[in-house]
């Protein structure tokens, strides 16, 4: 069997290996609870409230997510509400990771002070300074955890609280529709056209 590349049989193994241990502990009822909460607030037309993060912690995490997937000509992780996805995760299925976030944010603070004496917060740094700071910690478990959670928030279905307005899906041209008609892509369309052309030329 093919050993990689999303063959079905690699799927489960991949889904474990591709994520850090924190995510293996993620649990289904908690995800459903988070989903139900998001549905409720969305129906009421509200922005989700922060439950776990303080306003200041949220600002720091949000600034990190905004560097992991930045806004350029299109919106990024901040606009996709990734910080709310993470907050809701920590309130439900990811409660075990709360200490890692608290500790990670403290370490981040220390790193900021070390690199930029006098600076108070990561979120207050210039974009260039933020990138330098994250580059300095990009091998740490904390950074990789935030990166993983940001990516999941950015790309999982909007019902889970991130991927607001399908920002993640729009970036990659993913169509969430469940009914596609061929041609699916450029090359099969091209082949269809050339076959149709060949047919026409035949007497």
């Amino acid at each position: 069997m093919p050993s990689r590349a999303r063959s079905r049989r690699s799927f489960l193994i991949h889904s474990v290996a591709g994520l850090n241990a924190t995510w293996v502990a993620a649990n289904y009822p908690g995800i459903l609870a988070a989903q139900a909460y998001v549905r409720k607030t969305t129906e009421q037309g509200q922005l989700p409230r922060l439950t776990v993060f303080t306003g200041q912690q949220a600002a720091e995490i949000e600034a990190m997510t905004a560097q992991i997937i930045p806004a350029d000509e299109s919106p990024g992780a901040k606009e996709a509400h990734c910080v709310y996805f993470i907050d809701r995760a920590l309130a439900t299925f990811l409660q075990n990771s709360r200490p890692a976030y608290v500790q990670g944010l403290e370490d981040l603070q220390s790193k900021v002070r070390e690199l930029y004496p006098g600076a108070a917060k990561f979120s207050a740094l210039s974009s260039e300074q933020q990138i330098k700071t994250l580059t300095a910690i990009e091998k740490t478990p904390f950074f990789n955890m935030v990166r993983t959670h940001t990516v999941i928030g950015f790309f999982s279905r909007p019902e889970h609280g991130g991927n607001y307005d399908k920002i993640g899906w729009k970036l990659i041209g993913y169509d969430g529709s469940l009914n596609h008609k061929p041609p699916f892509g450029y090359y099969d369309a091209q082949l269809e056209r050339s076959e149709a052309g060949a047919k026409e030329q035949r007497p």
Partner: protein
Amino acid sequence: MKTYPTSTEVDFVVIGSGAAGGIMAKQLSTAGFSVVVLEQGGWGKYGREHEYNKDEWLQRNLSDEDRLMSDPSRQRNTFRRNEKEKAVRGNHSYGCVVGGGTVTYGGSSWRHLPWEFKEASHDSTVPAGTGLADWPIQYDELERYYTQAEWEMGISGLRVDSPFVAPMSKPYPVPPVPLKSSGALFQTAAAKLGLNVVPGPLAIITKPYMGRAACVNCGICSGYGCQVRARSSSAVTMLPLAEKTGRCEIRVRSYVREISVDNAGRVTGVVYFNEQKQEVRQRAKTVVLSANGSESARLLLLSKSARFPDGLANSSGLVGKYLMLGNGVVASALFEHPLNEYKGVISGAGIVDYVGSDPKRGFYGGGRLTARGYLTPLDLGLDGLSPGGPRWGAGYKQALREEANHRMTINCFVTQLPLETNRVDLDPDVKDDWGLPAMRITSTSHPDDFKNMQFFRTKSIEILEAAGAKKVWAPPIADTRGGAHNRGTCRMGNDPKTSVVDKYHKAHDVPNLFIVDGSSFVTGGRNHPTMTIQALAFRAADHIIQNAKKGAIRTNV
């Protein structure tokens, strides 16, 4: 659904409800026999398939209730390269739900070619010292059952006249799936390189068929249950028909721990754990073991008795041996324009020219290259970009934008030589969640298998380049440590000393035990086993029914 008291001696207990078990249950119950199917997994969305969803975040975190595959943290297993190593915890996993692996598989339904049943005597490239042997049956005997399976399950495809594809007496019941962009690129490459592209035969219907709707190309296909019931799994084809007879009971969460025998060496029934992990004994006149190419062997080894101290049906000592886990090769490429490979089925066209072994290559081996694979948004974002690029920041975002939907992947399905040293047995230390010895897998592929994988890796790269790729990459070759294509552990043969079952799947040592699944395979084909498992199951069922009606197999009828 019909239910039987456990005190009733039913005609047949069928262990497993997958590719083979589903067919056995349907054929035997339709013929008038009482059948109890024991499935260790749950119902899934059986009968309410529209409830399957494409939520990949939920899919990665399924509850026990919703799992469709076995869980290596419960169905524990261990792995080692060879007998000298101490086995470590493994990730072997297989379909584990009513319908088995057919509920989530890609649906590839290639037949074995006629010569694949006699490679040992007809192939001059076979190296010495392997377990490669001819099958005791030939293609001609199986052809009508391939046809029956294709028409009863619902297989889409195109009958082609090619030396690289098995001949068919009847076309497929429904036409092939639409060509994807990867298939069009395959054609571009094939035209340049002089190769042959064939639409992959698939257990996915493209037109309404037998009361089921056609595929809507929803995408993100394999690994997920099919909510329109277009994937022709046992759960939407065979098992509903079995239930409809009023003679078949399916019991879920039923984990069989023993096939029981009497002093005369006849099977009397099975003992299994129910959902509450209480032991239940079910009596049966005959047992059909269809638990898959690794679990069937393990259950026989677990079923030790005074009469069968080395495990049931194991006088040859071969139960568990000649395990073929199945190898594959992957290469990927980026193209200028979008392909949108996530739309439609996972497995499209195949290049079939290298299906046979060729002495000029200097080793035994063959296989098929298939345009196969897709990236979900999460797959892509977490670690799906081409190697070497940034993992965060502006460059990462730009790569997401540029690579998404521009990628094509080739998966090669290749040969694996049967070796006596590759095997399933019982781990001496590790227990599964039910307290039974865990499955231990010992496996290292033959050196020719590695040469063959290297050959296919090179060919894949060549083909992607010929198709006009901008960037091509392929991970280093590696052989497999587990997986749903496990075959060969109860091999079929005429000689009880060198095989476990006879040519009709009856255990040589036990008159009322039939072992029908991938474990019967003598050789592995090109690692596309399901169609052959299904044809063998229809054939075995025919034989059992005929003999039961003659009185040669005891039943209540």
